């Protein structure tokens, strides 16, 4: 309800409402872009471009889906387009493979179970990682993930099942 009001205010050109909307979604959008392009600067640019488009065309938002689903779909499509362009230019998958969830310098890494989860997520396939981000971080339903990624619902279910199994197997009693 509050979100609908924010969107209406944003459509009317309320700067404060726009800023609140952007602040609410920018970081999750950044993680979605990051899970596809695996480069912080590129991901940031993609999120910025996507948000600009969303703000410019916000009056076209039909409320058939959640605002966040609409935004994440744009971010996802932009990210995939960016990766496609990179691959075409370089002739290979030119993404920066060094980016991982697990960061050595992260002060939060005191928790061993957390470290394990991060390491296991880094071992997942690209598709699985995108599903993880959308399902666990963006808290999207399977239907919404399907809308965003154009993956079939059964495919997402299979992926989720596989992810849970992999994490449970590898973490054992940690979870």
């Amino acid at each position, binding site marked *: 309800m509050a979100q609908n009001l924010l969107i209406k205010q944003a459509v009317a050109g309320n700067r404060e409402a726009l800023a609140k909307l*952007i602040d609410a979604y920018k970081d999750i959008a950044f993680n979605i872009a990051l899970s596809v392009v695996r480069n912080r600067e590129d991901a940031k640019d993609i999120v*910025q471009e996507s948000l600009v488009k969303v703000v410019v065309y916000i009056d076209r938002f039909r409320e058939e889906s959640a605002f966040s689903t609409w935004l994440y779909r*744009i971010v996802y499509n*932009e990210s995939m387009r960016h990766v496609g362009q990179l691959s075409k230019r370089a002739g290979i998958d030119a993404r920066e493979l060094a980016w991982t969830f697990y960061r050595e310098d992260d002060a939060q890494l005191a928790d061993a179970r*957390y470290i394990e989860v991060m390491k296991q997520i880094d071992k997942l396939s690209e598709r699985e990682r995108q599903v993880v981000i959308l399902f*666990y971080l963006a808290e999207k339903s399977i239907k919404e993930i399907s809308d965003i990624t154009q993956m079939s619902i059964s495919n997402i279910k299979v992926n989720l099942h596989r992810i849970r199994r992999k994490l449970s197997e590898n973490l054992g009693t940690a979870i």
Partner: protein
Amino acid sequence: MNDDEFIKRSIRKGMQVIDDPDFTEKVIHAASAARSMKTQRPFMAFSSLVCGMLGLIVSSGFVVLYSVDALPRYLPYIDMKSGMIVVGISATFLLYTLFSDLVARSLRPKNFR
């Protein structure tokens, strides 16, 4: 704590953030610039199309008038060469207008319903 909840918590803990305090302002600024372009562009495109066509018609008229020896009587300093240059500039401007409009259409984002 069940598996899903633990994974969710861990991922939330490890969530990356955009480390730019001016990010939101930059987006709003870029969006308002893009918005004004969006509203002004059809008018500007139409105006430049009209200007281009008028330029083409007027300069073609000059050339025709000159070719039938009607022009030198009134404007003796305009010769055929100058007329052709004006036609060339007008035609280039007109083509540029049409081309830029076509390019702008092809670049329109496809993500929007």
